């Protein structure tokens, strides 16, 4: 958009923005409010808690649900980080080749990556479940990292390929003429330009792995490898007749916080990384 908005336009944009924000944030606020409610007050029909309590948080962090939640948190962080790291390294190499070199099968790689990413996860979960049980990958970190790569790799390759395609590679040569060694040229001229793209891709890949539920619930059975989204389903109330809604809400808030913080810190880079390929390429 160029030019300044007129008063009228500004008004309508504000209205639309508020509506979208309400629509997007209402569930988050609702979960946040619920996480501070006492189990007995869950069904009062009030939006905000009648009495604010941190008992739900105590339950998941130091109380009954501690083993379930903290081990799940550890699994989630570990598995997501490893899956992200592998995806970014592989995608960087692949995207470098796609963006920089000309080789037969270039289009095939991109098309295959796209195909993999639109393939519904639910349809391969059952065969994977059987396969993993037979080869001993069921309920292990590796058993989740591999399917997570199938989610994170395609999008990483696409994002990075778009990003790398518009890096002026001539700079590398210019740096060499300016007196740099090949390594110096890469580090001083190319890395500073490629880093934001790689970083953004890493964030996106991390979120995808972090948010996964289907694989997490299907390919794990104990707290050895079960990630947070799956673990939430195993929370139990204090008694059989009490719903664990409060504890689930508290856990949901805890796992949402790192994502929100990361996005807020790096929103500029994420937007730039996502739009660069699309707009300028």
């Amino acid at each position: 958009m160029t030019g300044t908005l007129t008063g009228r336009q500004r008004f309508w944009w504000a209205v639309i923005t508020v509506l979208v924000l309400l629509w997007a944030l209402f569930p988050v606020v609702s979960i946040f409010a619920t996480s501070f409610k006492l189990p007995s007050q869950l069904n009062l029909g009030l939006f905000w808690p009648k009495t604010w309590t941190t008992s739900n948080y105590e339950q998941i962090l130091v109380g009954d649900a501690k083993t379930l939640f903290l081990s799940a948190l550890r699994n989630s962080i570990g598995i997501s980080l490893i899956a992200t790291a592998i995806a970014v390294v592989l995608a960087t190499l692949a995207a470098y080749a796609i963006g920089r070199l000309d080789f037969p099968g270039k289009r095939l790689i991109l098309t295959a990556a796209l195909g993999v990413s639109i393939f519904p996860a639910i349809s391969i979960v059952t065969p994977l479940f059987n396969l993993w049980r037979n080869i001993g990958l069921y309920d292990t970190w590796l058993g989740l990292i591999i399917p997570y790569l199938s989610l994170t790799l395609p999008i990483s390759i696409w994002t990075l390929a778009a990003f790398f395609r518009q890096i002026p590679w001539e700079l590398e040569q210019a740096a060499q003429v300016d007196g740099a060694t090949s390594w110096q040229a890469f580090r001083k001229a190319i890395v500073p330009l490629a880093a934001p793209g790689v970083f953004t891709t890493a964030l996106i890949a991390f979120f995808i792995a972090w948010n996964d539920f289907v694989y997490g619930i299907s390919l794990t059975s104990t707290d050895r490898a079960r990630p947070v989204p799956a673990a939430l389903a195993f929370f139990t109330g204090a008694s059989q007749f009490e719903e664990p809604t409060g504890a689930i809400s508290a856990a949901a808030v805890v796992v949402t916080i790192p994502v929100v913080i990361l996005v807020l810190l790096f929103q500029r880079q994420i937007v730039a990384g996502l739009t660069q390929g699309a707009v300028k390429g």
Partner: protein
Amino acid sequence: MASITLKDIVKVYGDGYLAVKGVSLDIAEGEFVILVGPSGCGKSTLLRMIVGLEDITSGDLLIDGERVNEEAPRKRRLAMVFQNYALYPHLTVFENIAFPLRLERGQFTEEQIREKVRFAAETLELQDHLDRKPANLSGGQRQRVAMGRAIVRDARAFLFDEPLSNLDAKLRGQMRTEISRLQRSLGITTVYVTHDQTEAMTLGDRVAVLRKGELQQIASPRGLYEQPVNLFVAGFIGSPPMNFLPGEVEGDVLRLPIADVPLTPELRERLADRRLVIVGIRPDHFVDAALLEEHKRDAGVTFDAVVDVIEWLGSELYAYIPFETHPDVAAKLDELDRDLDGESMRTQLVAALSSESRVRDGESHPLWFDPARMLVFDPETWENLTYNEAAVQALDEQNEQDRKAALERAAARLSAAGTTPG
């Protein structure tokens, strides 16, 4: 400053494409040499081989008499300005210019770097932009930053790869004089690649014309203009381009579509038994007969031309005169047009006349030309049958003397000012 010598340089690309077919060149210290030719003639490849970004398939490249074929680019100590400037977008103008200095770790103190960058920025009038990022600069400013990066270094030679092709026409003219002034004042060996013959003619001490990876001719701009070695060089150099007419030899007369020209015994001998030739006449060699002094008229050929279109440019006037061509010659000229990246146009003759001329379009008007200045080419080999080697040498020697005098003057100015670059 350094001399650069190319001996039989050949470049074959990985896919077997022969891009440069054995080019030999001697570039003297402090000389400004232009590599010019239409696209695909191998000029950029040649430059990239000199700087070391492209492997040399065979032949020798010598800088200051030392073979550097296998040296890495950084060891060759040459500075290059790229076509798209290749500025580092994440660095400020200051850091862009300082980049080569910072690479030589420990060589310069922070103070020295600042001093050198300041000198370069002043030379190029970039002082006000040192803190800006390249993205915020205009085309001309980016171009100057790229040049700044070249001049801060103690480079042995400057290499330019079509540096002005991304600028608009007005800026191009300004930067052209800027580059020329810079080269003279620094007295540094320079190799400059362009496809634009105007740049080649105005900038170079010597111009090397390339066609399909082969060196056609290397001479001073005047030498190329007046004594092109073949049809290609004749057609490439000069704007508007040289007129090519079919010439049929009939006894002692050369029959052109516009007039019959008597053959001198000398030319008659050079033509040998050729029946058909291509005749080249520069547009500015035509004169409006009405404006010609009477005593000159008999020395040349006067003919009546039916002028189709007139372009009055203030300083001169272009008259376009259609003519019937010979089919054999037309085929040859089509081939030439393709080589020159041009389109086959209708056969017409361009005469650059004095702006005082009273020629009107649609009118028949007497024009005059001197057959002694006419060039005659063999239609098969494209060779210039009227080529005069002695004349070229005389022109080149004169040019060389002028160049040396200019360099001495520049050196004298520098020492008088008490500053030395670097």
